[in-house]
């Protein structure tokens, strides 16, 4: 079907706003193919089914809307005390001075910009490939845009059990920056690594992370999306999970005028595990808050387990969205799929919209999904207060209790404690 002229114009204007980087033949091809695909799809508009609850206009506009910088004051940044390999990007550009030496036993790390100029590189079989694969059955044009124009990012290959996490730190220093980052990660058989991501990144941020897990590989992903109120972001994770591999992802979001996190997970081998979780805390008091988790998990292997656990705490007109799907293909017997999305509304001004979906073509599977929207449990609140806990502390305790199922998806105790410390900060700010 031909695209409407308005959509073509929107797409062409956005494409025209960027320079197409030149690189090795395979890289140029990947970029051109991505733009061809993008032109065929067109950039999304609010009329698209998958953008019904989140207006993409600010993500598709030719230039990034301005975003004020945020001063954290004396608050400690997340992951500060974690022993990690730091890779710093400032407004979407790698900063070697602030980054650690890119070497760690069991890891090969390179800059995307360098890899894209290398004639032969293992990443050429992944760059844009997992993204392309993830366009079916739901189009994700902003990811194709990313593959076409990404100028920076990291390319990581894990070959053993890596001793400390790789930590991507996204600093935001320009009020008009428009960052497009693309990461490619391959975890080899038996290897295991943890990826940390933190920070707002830019006034507008578009990221694609392609993760390829070989059989028995393990990948842990913990994200804290920063606190800059005014920034916009769309992030995509395209994940391929082979036999007996484990993928575990957790994202914490505090603030953000518009954030869409997409997860596209393809479980291709047997006995594999994929968990994706998120906790979003939104306060629309000073600046709007709109948060959207869009997840698509496909089961192709037998005896696999997937979990989606998403919790949102919303107040002062904050807006939360969840679109989650579990697709079980005909051969994927003994699938164990679980999906829960819940919102705790701290007032009557906030909104949560959820679209949980199951599509099952195998007959021997266990799949469940649930979605709830509710207020603080008054009975529990009174019970706590009758024991001497003041209203505010009691509310905090119930908020943390509500988030617990998502937080518990973080396996590492120190990282979990660190994320909890960030939650405490948010709760303390709530009282201001």
């Amino acid at each position, binding site marked *: 079907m031909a695209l409407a002229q308005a959509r073509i114009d929107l797409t062409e204007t956005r494409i025209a706003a960027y320079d197409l980087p030149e690189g090795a033949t395979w890289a140029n091809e990947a970029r051109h193919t991505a733009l061809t695909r993008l032109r065929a799809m067109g950039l999304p508009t609010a009329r698209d089914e998958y953008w019904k609850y989140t207006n993409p206009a600010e993500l598709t506009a030719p230039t990034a809307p301005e975003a004020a910088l945020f001063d954290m004051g004396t608050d400690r940044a997340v992951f500060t005390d974690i022993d990690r390999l730091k890779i710093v990007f400032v407004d979407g550009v790698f900063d070697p001075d602030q980054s650690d030496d890119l070497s760690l036993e069991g890891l090969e790390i390179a800059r995307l910009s360098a890899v894209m100029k290398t004639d032969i590189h293992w990443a050429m079989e992944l760059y844009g490939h997992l993204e392309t694969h993830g366009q079916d059955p739901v189009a994700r044009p902003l990811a194709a845009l990313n593959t076409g124009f990404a100028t920076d990012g990291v390319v990581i290959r894990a070959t053993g059990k890596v001793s400390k996490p790789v930590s991507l730190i996204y600093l935001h220093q320009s009020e008009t920056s428009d960052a497009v980052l693309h990461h490619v990660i391959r975890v080899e058989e038996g290897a295991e690594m943890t990826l940390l991501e933190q920070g707002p990144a830019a006034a507008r941020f578009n990221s694609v992370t392609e993760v390829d897990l070989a059989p028995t590989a393990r990948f842990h992903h913990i994200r804290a999306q920063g606190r800059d109120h005014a920034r916009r972001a769309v992030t995509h994770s395209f994940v391929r999970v082979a036999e007996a591999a484990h993928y575990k992802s957790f994202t914490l979001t505090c603030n953000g005028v518009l954030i869409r996190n997409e997860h596209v997970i393809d479980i291709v081998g047997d006995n594999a595990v994929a968990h994706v979780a998120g906790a979003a805390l939104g306060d629309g008091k000073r600046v709007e808050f709109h948060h959207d988790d869009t997840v698509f998990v496909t089961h192709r292997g037998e005896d696999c387990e997937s979990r989606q656990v998403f919790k949102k705490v919303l107040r002062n007109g904050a807006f939360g969205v969840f679109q989650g799907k579990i697709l079980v293909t005909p051969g994927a017997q003994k699938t164990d799929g679980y999906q829960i999305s819940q919102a705790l509304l701290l007032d009557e001004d906030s909104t949560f919209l959820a679209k949980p979906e199951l599509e099952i073509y195998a007959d021997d599977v266990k799949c469940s999904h649930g979605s709830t929207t509710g207020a603080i449990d008054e*009975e529990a609140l*009174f*019970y706590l207060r*009758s*024991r*001497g806990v*003041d209203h505010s502390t009691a509310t905090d*305790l*119930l908020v943390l*209790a509500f988030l617990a199922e998502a937080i518990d998806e973080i396996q590492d105790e120190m990282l979990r404690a660190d994320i909890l410390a960030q939650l405490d900060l948010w709760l303390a700010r709530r009282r201001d």
Partner: protein
Amino acid sequence: MLEIKNLHVELEEEGKQILKGVDLTVEAGKVHAIMGPNGSGKSTLSYVLSGRDGYRVTDGSASLLGEDILEMEPEARAAAGLFLAFQYPVEIPGVGNMTFLRTALNAQRKLRGEDEVSAADFLKLVREKAKTLKIDAEMLKRPVNVGFSGGEKKRNEILQMAMLEPKMCILDETDSGLDVDAMKLVSDGVNALRDAGRGFLVITHYQRLLDHIKPDVVHIMSDGRIIKTGGPELALEVEKNGYADLLAEAV
């Protein structure tokens, strides 16, 4: 200790009057029991005293150690020394029982201007108290009341009471849902807390709880009023003849 005078209470939404002039004084060191048929206002009295929403006091007063409590927030009443053992203890998924106990204990201490209890001291204290109530480590770790049996919930209420050491304890139908053994265990827990400085108000339908927790004074409540007050023998009379005679007498 607890002084209730001419207390009139109605339901906030419906405006229906539940308590129609309750007069009751519980002295330190004494156990008072309130008995009465369903719908007589016993539980409402306990909720109003502990500060639950949904009730409107239209007349009268209630004070704890001379301090008017009806205007206080529920947490302030707790800090002042009031404790309600719930008829239906609330389940709080996600909040560990230990966290709950420690938060409550320290919150009360803070409101009273006292230092917080250290983690080590708290642990020692809770283990000691839990042991006498036969509450095992597993139960302490679980989320508050989640998946607890009826008996476990009631024992957990008494554990909270033992930890918080309130001055005035109100037990709202603590015997409901308990088998004979659990009733003994809970009663022993309550009896262990009896001392000269503490008052108790035990609300119950049945005499059997009062076999274990021996009251000094028994009140009969009906239609929002205390209609008769007497010694422990009054409870036995109810057990034998039911409420009908007493109600007829009152009219």
